[in-house]
């Protein structure tokens, strides 16, 4: 369908364009890894403590590098002055939102793909577990989706980069709590049935915060 063709064209364009801008993607990845390294100096802890801190460390790394990456989503449109070109094309505003969100989800996934093995390697705690990965993937959807709405808003204010974190971080508290708790339970040897409560929160957050930005996005980009 034409709608999805446009959505994926926007996502693909963003991914290609940002990957070509190697400084950006490498800085974001380096930042994520640096966050993990700073933890080592912040708390010199034994193996058992590391295990209990691991979920939090992962999500601090995701949250902060996520802010950096999501902040970029509209800055590239702004730098090239392309937003109007998108708005004038026969594509609905919500399709632009979905395309942008999918593009940014791909970037979050790249960050996660790097952070998981690096964490495992540095701290000798395996966080690579199918359920942990599922939790992370599901949380990424809502995380990026609401981030994209705020990123579009932020880029239209005077203080661009500052706006996203102060608005975004408190809003995604539920996701971070649920994802961190679920990951903790699984790393402690729990089963999937032990984390259904947390999964429900994540899924509910995803559904609500994909729908709400989908509806509200048009009010941000209009003139």
């Amino acid at each position, binding site marked *: 369908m034409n709608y999805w063709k446009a959505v994926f064209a926007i996502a693909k364009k963003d991914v290609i364009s940002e990957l070509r801008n190697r400084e950006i993607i490498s800085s974001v990845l380096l930042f994520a890894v640096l966050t993990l390294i700073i933890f080592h100096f912040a708390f010199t802890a034994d193996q058992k403590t590391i295990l209990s801190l691991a979920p939090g460390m992962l999500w601090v790394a995701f949250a902060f590098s996520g802010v950096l990456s999501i902040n970029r989503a509209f800055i590239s449109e702004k730098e090239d002055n392309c937003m109007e070109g998108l708005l004038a094309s026969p594509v609905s505003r919500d399709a632009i939102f979905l395309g942008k969100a999918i593009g940014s989800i791909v970037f979050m996934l790249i960050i996660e793909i790097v952070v998981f093995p690096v964490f495992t390697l540095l701290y000798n705690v395996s966080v690579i577990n199918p359920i942990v990965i599922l939790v992370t993937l599901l949380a990424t959807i809502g995380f990026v989706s609401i981030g994209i709405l705020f990123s579009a808003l932020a880029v239209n*204010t*005077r203080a661009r980069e500052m706006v996203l974190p102060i608005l975004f971080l408190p*809003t995604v508290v*539920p996701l971070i709590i649920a994802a961190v708790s679920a990951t903790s339970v699984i790393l402690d040897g729990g089963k999937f049935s032990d984390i259904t409560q947390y999964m429900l929160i994540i899924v509910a957050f995803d559904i609500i915060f994909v729908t709400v930005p989908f509806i509200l996005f048009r*009010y941000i980009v209009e003139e």
Partner: protein
Amino acid sequence: MRRRTLIAFGISAVMIIVALVMVFIVCPTEATMGNIQRIFYFHVPVAWNAFFSFFVTFVFGIVYLKTRNPKYDFIAESSAKIGLVFATLILLTGMIWAKPIWGVWWTWDARLTSSLVMWLIYLAYFIIRSYISEEEKKYRFGSIIGIVGFIDIPIVALSIQLAPTTHPKAMIFNDGLHGTMLLTLLLSIAAMFAVYFLFMFLYYDLRTDEYEIARMKKRLLKEND
């Protein structure tokens, strides 16, 4: 001052006096916590009102986006401002209450934490508005943050509540609360609502006057050009 403001002032003054008499004279001292428990009659109404304020901001955010009448954003913004003051009071009274009962000023208890997150979201609401120079955009983005923020509150509360908590369970409508205590609480809530409307009228009128003055100024400058 407009008439409705005076009326609201009168009603709130009377209700506050009644509520104070109930809280400090009529109401019995709670058995385990002692006198400090009386802060409950302030803490809970303030919490209800903060939530109500943000609900008003949410509703008028939607109305603004649909109608584009600045008036509705003034209502939303005024309500958010009062809500932020109330949310600050939740945190402060919560801390005052926590110190003698739990021995610490701050505890990461579920409801205090939820209130803190709510407070941060609406603080961001005002910081971000101040970063926008165009009036119309300020209203539009304010509405969007007001809508998203309010929808987020219950999810925040729900996610935090999954963690173990020391906060007293809501026991208002069980047998847990003595009859006089319940009456006192309801009166305090009503008094706080009256205060909400009083501030609402004051802020809203102030905001509209500000707007009118800015318009007149612009018009005068244009004529002198």
